[in-house]
């Protein structure tokens, strides 16, 4: 097992190197740089001054020189410095990553909490009315653009009904560490989480449903029935456990999307997470941040796949990693 993980991690290294080079080349291929944006409508900076700043930031070097410098830094554990946010990227990420992760995990968990029972009902009563309703819902969710749904949720529950806060991650007056603080945090998470989760359920529902439909007619289920196992136990012990395997394996891939995956929600709910940072870094040509993002994203998906494989091998005795 450990050998397997280690080997996989070793394989990641060349992929990441390639990825970073690609990211750098792409970043440099984009027109403009971090100063172009700051110049926008600002007559105080002269073009000459801008040129001076570019030189200072090393923006005039060719991409491979910048890449070499960056790689050197990375080797020393330094991700680089954000030109735009004027701070080291580690700190920049550190400030926001927890919020994005928290939101994403809430969404992920809620998605599963919603999708699993729905998928089960749908699969169990396949082609019956509960299945039709759930399938209908999941199509609707699939076809609805996130931002429309999020806006509607926001207006209905935030403004019209006034049940939940409409932006931010926590009430500023709540004292950190107090119960009130955590309640406030939780309240702020409700709407973005729901908006994200309600329309993210489709894949899981459909997957689970078809897995259950498939599992239902498997021979071992018939064996279980022949043993006299009651129907409810047939589901809980036999059908569901087997149907969950692909879902569980999927978890790893889902984690891939956690980093910077909630841009739209974060924007609508003024939630200060990584998503905006990501778009902004592209818009403002903040190369080091862009590259760092690509790297972290790539790393996350690599670990996600690894995690999927590990999960799969732990839940499915047939796949054992030596």
């Amino acid at each position: 097992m450990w050998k397997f993980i280690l080997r996989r991690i070793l394989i990641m290294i060349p992929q990441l190197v390639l990825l970073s080079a690609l990211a750098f080349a792409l970043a440099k291929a984009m027109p403009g740089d971090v100063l172009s944006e700051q110049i926008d409508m600002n007559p105080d900076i002269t073009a000459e001054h801008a040129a001076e700043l570019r030189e200072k930031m090393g923006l005039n070097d060719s991409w491979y020189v910048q890449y070499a410098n960056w790689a050197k830094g990375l080797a020393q554990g330094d991700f680089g410095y954000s030109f735009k946010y004027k701070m080291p990227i580690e700190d920049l990420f550190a400030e926001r990553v927890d919020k994005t992760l928290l939101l994403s995990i809430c969404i992920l968990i809620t998605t599963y909490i919603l999708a699993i029972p729905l998928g089960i009902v749908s699969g169990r009563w396949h082609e019956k009315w509960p299945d039709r309703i759930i399938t209908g819902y999941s199509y609707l969710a699939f076809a609805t653009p996130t931002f429309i749904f999020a806006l509607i949720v926001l207006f209905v529950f935030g403004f019209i009904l006034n049940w939940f806060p409409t932006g931010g991650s926590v009430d500023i007056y709540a004292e950190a560490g107090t119960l009130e603080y955590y309640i406030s945090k939780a309240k702020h998470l409700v709407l973005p989480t729901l908006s994200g989760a309600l329309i993210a359920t489709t894949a899981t529902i459909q997957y689970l449903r078809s897995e259950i439909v498939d599992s239902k007619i498997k021979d071992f289920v018939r064996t279980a029935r022949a043993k006299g196992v009651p129907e409810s136990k047939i589901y809980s012990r036999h059908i569901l456990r087997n149907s969950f395997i692909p879902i569980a394996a999927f978890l790893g891939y889902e984690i891939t999307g956690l980093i910077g995956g909630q841009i739209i929600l974060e924007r609508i709910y003024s939630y200060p997470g990584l998503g905006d940072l990501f778009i902004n870094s592209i818009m403002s040509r903040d190369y080091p941040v862009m590259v760092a993002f690509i790297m972290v994203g790539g790393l996350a998906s690599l670990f996600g796949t690894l995690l999927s494989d590990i999960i799969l091998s732990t839940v499915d005795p047939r796949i054992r990693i030596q």
Partner: protein
Amino acid sequence: GGGGETKPASKPAEGGDKAQEQGSAPFPSVVKNDKEAVKDGKLTYGIVSGGPLEGIFHPNFYGISTDAEAMDWFYPGLLSADDNFQYTNDGAAEYEISQDRKTITLKIKDKVKWHDGKDVTADDLLYSYEVIAHPDYKGVRFAGINRKIVGIEKYHKGETDKIEGIKITDPKTISITFTEPDPGIVSGIWDYPMHREYFKGVSIDKMAESKQVREKPIGFGPFKVEKIVPGEALSLVRVDDYFLGTPQLKQVELKVIAPAVAAASLKNGEVDIAMLTEDQYEQSKESKNLQLIGRSALSYNYIGFKLGKYDTAKKTSVMDPNAKMADKNLRQAMAYAIDKKSIAEKLYKGLRIPATSVIPPAGKPYHDKTLKGYEFDVEKAKKLLDDAGYKDTTGDNIREKDGKEFKITFAARNNNALAEAYAKFLLQSWEKVGLKVEFLDGKLHESSKFYDMVEADNPAIDVFAAGWNTGSDPDPSGIWAKEVGFNFPRWVNAKNDELLTKGTSPEAADTKFRIDVYNEWQKLIHDEAPLVPIDYRYDIYGVNTRVKNFDKTYGTKVGYHDIAVTEKEPVK
């Protein structure tokens, strides 16, 4: 650019017009509320932004206007200005100009204290210069007139560690000497001190990320930062011994709200004040619990014509007589073809004003009121074109130049929701007078890319639509002088050079003289039309009816410490 340049407080200009007269839109620039203020009120201010705050709370380092908007509450400049953007002595410091108009001497008032209780000293201002001019400094604040301080370039190159032109005579007095008597000395110097002691031990390249800037910013304004929730909110409390008097409000919360919810947040009282964009304005117009105030911004949107190239080696713009847009008549015709009024009133719902000159009305007294700009006149446009030899010879309603196909390429930014309609409308307007105009690459461009192309004189671009923030200093050299890189039209004109020099000459210390110079200059621009201003913008604020003394008038004496509320809770 951002809000750092304009000063929150100054006394009303003598005999100055009220804000209403700055334009034709029906907005007051101050809220009206005669009710009794509630003691120790609490107010929520919404910072409208599509993303989180960057959280760089120091004038020397911040990058985006939302951070600046927050800083307005706790980190003003030392000097106040009047509605002409000339320094006054009402602020935290008084000033004096030397005879030769090369030296400005600031005296910081006694009760001006940092939020940690320490006095704001002359040395703190010096420190600020030492930082922004330092070779390790990576921000963009070392600009404008401040580069003309004696010896500062030497310091900037790292050749010396003293700035020759800045002298401290006593702990509260500082004099700054410039190499030439630039009129900008009374409107454009860097007057944000930096707490030297507080930043002790922080190296300059690490300042922007330091705790002193991000977590515990210290200013000397009416409110001080109590707590920051990174990216989303700040809570401020009043500074009881603020030198202009104890602020009325006890507590202020500044929080980021998404543009999409700004109107709704105002309407249900979630925030008391927030800036509004055009489409939220529509929504908020009807809200009973709101007053809308506005002021015309120090900016204008324009279409520019590429007339030449920037010669990097010679560091000057060079006009190309064969440029497609070289014909003045063509440019004027294109200007006449645009229905600016409809753009302002229909597309922008009256939140914009048709522009007449390249100094916006807010930049008075230099704004030339007599200029009428190019008023919409299709016939005139057509005639101009006909006369200049742009005639439709093929009968397809598209003009040819001397019988040859004539096609103009137009570049525009995609910077807001209406940008597409705006740019498309311009295109159609030109088509209506028979000019074939196409978007560069068939689409609008993202801002960074747009400026990159315009600045690099992308040969494909003939016409471009952009905007400028003029800042409070009327000197337009930064974008009009032939040497500067931002002279995007690459327009070179002897008269222009002359007037620009005149505008910053010692005589220009005389406002009257300067007004005349710039009026003449504005006319020149109008006639030559290297670029044509299209509209001026209004900054609109939605304000809850319980708010009192929120005044956005330029040069107002009413400061943030005067803001009060007349109800305990926001009106819904």
